[in-house]
């Protein structure tokens, strides 16, 4: 970086930007959580919101607390990770999974599925329900990962607010569920508890898409509504990780507003259904042959 003498009138926006860079650097060096390549506008918003709640006067004032107080760090991570999710979110996507991806999965003797950024687990249970209804659950091994331990803990428990059950049931029907949603949970006070038998094949684990590596070959990877929080560099890193973890012919399912457009391996994937953001990794040797034929 060029060192130049500044005239004292640095704009407050630029000072704040500098403060946020320092905060993120402190978080990374002290705790190994790396938000430096997240979508900056989004991180700035969260940091400003957190500042208002916290009572500190400036973002840089939070740095000492961050360095010395692990609880403060945990609250900040919570603020930076957006865990909004729901059962059968974007039901149309599940429908496409069932109709276009499951038939291919059925040809495998066993299936490995990875939910990256699973948050509180609704997405994992939703897919498990459809897998079971289609007779695929018992041959599936499902990995559900997130870097937010608190969210993972909720995911493992599978206890959700009763308030959302109506919406979930509607979503389930739109997603192409073939039974009755109510058979997959029981109500307890103001919560629903997901049926334990649905957890049998799921392993929940902490995994950070910024710093951790691949842990095996998958047939289907879902990473929905996580990449929008990353900048381009980090999106590419995550996509390369998924690419490395997918068998040829494996599927990648992204969030509705996420795409492979700005990724260099874009051409090695085929869109299964544009609206659902489901892509299939091409069987590369075959595809090379094809281009040679032309």
């Amino acid at each position, binding site marked *: 970086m060029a060192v130049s003498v500044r005239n004292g009138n640095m*704009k407050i*926006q630029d000072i*704040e*930007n500098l403060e946020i860079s320092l905060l993120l650097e402190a978080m990374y060096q002290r705790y190994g959580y790396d938000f430096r390549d997240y*979508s*900056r*506008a*989004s991180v*700035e*918003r*969260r940091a400003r919101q957190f500042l208002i709640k916290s009572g500190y006067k400036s973002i840089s004032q939070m740095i000492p607390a961050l360095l010395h107080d692990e609880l403060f760090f945990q609250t900040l991570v919570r603020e930076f990770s*957006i865990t*909004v999710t729901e059962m059968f979110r974007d039901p149309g996507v599940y429908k496409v999974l069932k109709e276009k991806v499951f038939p291919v999965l059925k040809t495998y003797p066993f299936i490995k599925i990875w939910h990256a950024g699973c948050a509180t687990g609704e997405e994992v249970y939703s897919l498990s329900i459809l897998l079971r209804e289609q007779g695929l659950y018992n041959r599936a091994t499902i990995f559900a990962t997130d870097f937010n331990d608190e969210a993972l803990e909720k995911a493992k428990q599978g206890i959700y607010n009763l308030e959302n059950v109506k919406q979930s049931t509607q979503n389930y029907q739109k997603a192409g569920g073939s039974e009755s949603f109510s058979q997959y949970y029981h109500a307890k006070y103001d919560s629903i508890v997901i049926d334990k038998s649905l957890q049998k094949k799921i392993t929940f684990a902490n995994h950070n898409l910024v710093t951790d590596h691949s842990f095996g070959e998958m047939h289907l990877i879902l990473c929905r*509504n996580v*990449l*929008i*929080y990353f*900048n*381009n560099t980090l*999106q590419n890193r995550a996509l390369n990780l998924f690419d490395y973890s997918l068998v040829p012919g494996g599927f990648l399912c992204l*969030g509705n*507003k*996420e*795409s492979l*457009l*700005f990724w260099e391996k874009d051409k090695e994937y085929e869109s299964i259904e544009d609206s659902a953001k489901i892509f299939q990794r091409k069987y590369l040797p075959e595809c090379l042959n094809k281009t040679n034929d032309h």
Partner: protein
Amino acid sequence: MTTNIKEKKYEAVAIGVSAGGLKALIKVFSNLPADFPIPIIVTQHLNPSEDSYLAEILNRITLLPVKEAMDKEKIKPGNIYIAPPNYHLLLERNETISLSNDEKVNYSRPSIDAMFESAAYAWSGNLIGIILTGASIDGANGIRVIKNFGGLTIAEDPKAAEYPMMPKTAVDTGAVDKILTLSEINKFLINLSGVDKRAE
């Protein structure tokens, strides 16, 4: 940094609109010249379960390309970008768009405040913020941030607006520079391209 204050160069227009939005936007965008020099970003409150046909409709009434904003897309001059339903549209300092699924702001996603604030940080004093008809308080805070950073702020005249609450809330902050009718805003935008050409 330029010292020429009179010929201040604006780099982007951000428009926030809610109820009554389609009609208002059609008026504001009509007859914009094809060589409109800067990008326009729009947050319109929409029903989240609806697909957004807004971009399609607007495309038919203006010469400028109108598109639903994509995540990490680079902003280009003379293009109009619309926030997709159910996502906040945020501006990055490197003039790309980030979409976000964060909590609603003022019961809204997309939120005008979220867009205005991030745009104000991205473009500082070179941003024009415009708030139009709507039955919401969304956008008023954002207008204040734009003004604080030296940008130009415009509200549709609440007396003429189909739904006055949103522009009125913005005006009440005391941070609005110009209160104009829709056709005056339209004229202002058309002139903007003229001014910009002279300045070059």
